[in-house]
């Protein structure tokens, strides 16, 4: 186990950053598991005009928020969270080869920009995987396909090639179908058919249901009660991942509220 935190935040977008800054203010040790800022939905906004105190492009605002996080005492953990689970008195978050423990976790993973592929849920765990480093070795030297793009996807593609896999790479956009019988064995991308032993769907973030086993959610949106509480003890959620409205001010507000609730929760442990 790599490190222990009071509060671990999954997601380095506005909600995650707001939560981190609030928690740091309350004297807590904070970790933020974050992808590069360019992957945040905010980054894509051409112009933000309804956020009090800050105007500009989404990219500019995202950078400012990120700099503030970097200048705080919060630890930024690059990478993708793979699993969040209660370990009794603490909550574990697996990232890559290892895992972290925290007294409380805030999920601020945003919303997935990519819809599910046909067959994705059906074959998950049976020829479809979200994690190349977790499952890659089981397909050493075999034929695999990767649906994904970006820096992290490139690293995973290199890893798979290093272990002798024959890797077909697709962006993940377009019409995609995953077919098979007991396990997925065929991928059809915009009419092109590939036989596969495993299909790695590499998204920037896992959906709520995949990430947190047993979390109450509906179609990827985490159900939260007052103060961002989820149905899992010690796990809170904030921002786009809790649903509409998908607005910057809402994400930042929820991040603040969830952090305060997490601080309160910890004090009662």
């Amino acid at each position, binding site marked *: *186990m790599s490190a222990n935190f009071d509060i671990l935040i999954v997601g380095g977008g506005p909600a995650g950053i707001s939560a981190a800054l609030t928690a740091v203010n309350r004297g807590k040790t904070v970790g933020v598991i974050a992808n590069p800022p360019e992957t945040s939905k905010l980054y894509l906004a051409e112009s933000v005009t309804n956020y009090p105190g800050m105007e500009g492009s989404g990219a500019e605002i995202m950078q400012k928020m990120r700099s503030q996080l970097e200048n705080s005492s919060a630890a930024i953990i690059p990478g993708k969270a*793979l*699993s969040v*689970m*209660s*370990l*009794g008195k603490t909550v*574990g*978050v*697996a*990232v*890559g*080869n*290892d*895992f972290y423990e925290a007294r409380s976790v805030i999920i601020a993973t945003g919303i997935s920009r990519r819809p599910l592929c046909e067959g994705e849920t059906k074959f998950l*765990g*049976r*020829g479809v*995987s979200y994690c190349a*480093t*977790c*499952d890659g*070795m*089981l397909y050493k030297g075999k034929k695999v396909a990767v649906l994904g793009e970006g820096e992290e996807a490139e690293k995973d593609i290199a890893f798979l090639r290093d272990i002798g896999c024959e890797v077909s790479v697709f962006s993940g956009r377009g019409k995609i179908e995953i077919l098979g019988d007991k*396990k997925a064995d065929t991928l059809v991308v915009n009419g092109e058919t590939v036989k596969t032993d*495993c299909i790695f769907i590499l998204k920037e973030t896992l959906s709520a249901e995949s990430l947190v*086993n*047993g979390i109450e959610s509906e179609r990827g949106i985490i159900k939260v009660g007052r103060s961002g509480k989820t149905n899992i003890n010690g796990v809170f959620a904030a921002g786009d991942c809790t649903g509409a409205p998908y607005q910057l001010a809402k994400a930042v507000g929820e991040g603040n509220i969830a952090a305060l609730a997490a601080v309160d929760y910890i004090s009662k442990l």
Partner: protein
Amino acid sequence: MAIMHLTKDNFDSVTSSGLVLVDFWATWCGPCRMVAPIIDQLEEEYAGKIKVGKVNVDEQGELAARFGVMSIPTLIVFKNGEVAAKTVGVQPKQAVLDMLK
């Protein structure tokens, strides 16, 4: 009793009788390592009632293939040598206990 490291040589003799929980894992798999303490706890709490074994899929590729392990962590419960339950992916403690019933 402690957690047994299972290989293709001892697998059948260990799982042939009684209730055995087998954890298929690998060193590079973060979620597998996160689940490990829970498996350890179960081994301690139910020592005598269940046997607990671990299979490193990197070292024991044959065993992984034999039981159709396509994603890790995978937990399989054996009752007198037969597969009684199987889960893929991280499972909380209660879910593992439910598998053992």
